[in-house]
């Protein structure tokens, strides 16, 4: 595969997707502290009502740097993230507590997590023009071996369902919009809801650039990472490209949902593999800052022989 064919592979990955010629740029709520607290209370009340979290008279609230924690009985906690309004519940169970008695087929596990999501009416968090679609099932398993090479049977500990929010038929790409994890005895072990509340207004309606144009920017980014003018064809193990709105993460403020192209590319080098997620905007105009190459290091000093000596003396 050459640089040119990587381009076509990425663009071709979008061939079956119905990419609109135009898309709305959706304004998002910038939640106030009161709104965040109300959202967190609604979340905990919902779980309590369904018997999915221990009952507490409002719990003990603690504000941290980028989120507020609500400490609940039995080591459980709920969290709300200040920048995005993302919500999270964790049961406090140990990772291997309450395993499944038997391995279960993926279809059975998917049914279990989907039933629980329905019961908790999680799609209500997707907003009036939104919907939730099931995306992926994850399982957590365990096994062991003794020094003689005897291995234990595999134990299934957790099943987790991940859903994607669609708004106006367009997926909101990024971390799963909802992730719900169940124990073997059907208890809710964890739940995260990362759907930003929209404010109901449209900032603009923007023309969408062709997938080929998005793919070209992504290939250029990748070549830069590789320190090359082009991406050597024989390095590429797999490559996909998706179109959708982009959520920048639960700790980041975001004023709008704007369309982007997101590639997942796996490279195979002789010393190992490399898996990259690269995102570019899908509109001519920039509605959202996409930090391509991340932050710099915070620890400023270099590792000199003097620093090593100081460390050794200490």
């Amino acid at each position, binding site marked *: 595969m050459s640089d040119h064919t990587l381009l076509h592979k990425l663009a071709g990955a979008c061939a079956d997707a119905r990419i609109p010629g135009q898309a709305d740029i959706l304004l998002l709520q910038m939640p106030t502290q009161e709104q965040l607290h109300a959202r967190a209370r609604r979340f905990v009340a919902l779980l309590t009502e369904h018997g999915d979290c221990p009952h507490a008279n409002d719990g003990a609230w603690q504000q*941290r*740097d*980028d*989120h507020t*924690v609500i400490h609940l009985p039995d080591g459980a906690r709920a969290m709300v993230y200040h920048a995005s309004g993302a919500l999270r519940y*964790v049961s406090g169970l*140990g*990772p*291997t*507590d309450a395993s499944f008695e038997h391995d279960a087929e993926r279809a059975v596990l998917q049914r279990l997590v989907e039933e629980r999501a329905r019961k908790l009416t999680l799609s209500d968090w997707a907003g009036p023009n939104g919907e939730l679609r099931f*995306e992926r*099932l*994850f*399982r*957590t*398993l*365990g*096994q*062991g*071996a*003794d*020094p003689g*090479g*005897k291995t*234990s*049977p595999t134990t299934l500990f957790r099943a*987790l369902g*991940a859903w994607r929010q669609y708004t106006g038929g367009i997926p909101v*790409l*990024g*971390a*799963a919009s909802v992730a719900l994890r169940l124990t073997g005895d059907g208890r809710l072990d964890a739940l995260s809801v990362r759907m930003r509340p929209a404010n109901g207004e449209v900032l603009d309606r923007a023309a969408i650039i062709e997938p080929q144009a998005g793919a070209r920017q992504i290939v250029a980014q990748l070549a*830069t*990472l*590789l*320190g090359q003018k082009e991406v*050597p064809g024989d390095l590429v193990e797999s490559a996909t490209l998706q179109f959708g709105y*982009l959520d920048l*993460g639960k700790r980041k403020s975001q004023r709008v949902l704007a369309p982007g192209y*997101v590639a*997942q590319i*796996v490279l195979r*080098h*002789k*010393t*190992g*593999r*490399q*898996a*990259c*997620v*690269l995102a570019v905007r899908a509109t001519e105009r920039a509605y959202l800052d*996409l930090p*391509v190459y*991340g*932050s710099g*290091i915070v620890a400023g000093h*270099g*590792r000199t022989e003097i620093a090593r000596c100081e*460390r050794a003396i200490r």
Partner: protein
Amino acid sequence: MARFGVEAIRYFSHARAAHVSTAGDLTYTFNRSNGLDNKLRGAGHTRAFYWANTDVWETDIRDSDQGGDDRHWVDDVDLFWIETHGNHDEAGHAVLLYDTPATEWLANSAHWQLGEDWNNEWVMAYSCDTAALPTVTGLWNIFARMHIYCGAWDLMWDGITTDECGEDVGDNLVHGDTVAHAWHDGVSDWWVDNHPITVCVGDAATWNDGAIRWNLSAINRDHLWGHGTVTADLAPAQQACLLWYWTEG
């Protein structure tokens, strides 16, 4: 409270120039490593060192008896976080790529022995493929009283959706989650499959002739110092099993 060390390599230009690897630079390396660093220091834990790029040396994790200097670095902290490119060899030893040959370009876990007479309990490696499931027992030699190795049994993704993984792992640790849970949950965005795995050793009571008593394992009981229980160190003579716990999509 815990002492921790961070090492993170984002650029691999020297390794490429030396024809050691064609590996590309990473992108959100420092978002993750800075994130973990901020969260742990914010909760009162002590950062012993934070090295980046060519200041990260493979001798920092190599056993002092095998030409390395782990007693002053990785084995001198309770928790060690590293991010770089990873792999494993046929025997299941973890392999890590460095951007400077101090003294090797590649670390191989055949030469690691952690927790020995020193300090280390937990190693977290945000790197691809360092603990492949079929050969995971190849990691056994690194457990010289160390408790848990946290790594990936396949790909681990670098990009805009995994940039908060360091903060998530840090938050989980200081909120009192187990180390295993902090890793599995923290490095997963539940979109890309990050293949987290945690590996520990157990004693005969835990192995229980193959009917594993998982509730006794470090995977179920270890928390960061100051945030819950920590299991006792297991010397090699007490180790009756290797246990691994992984998430797959």
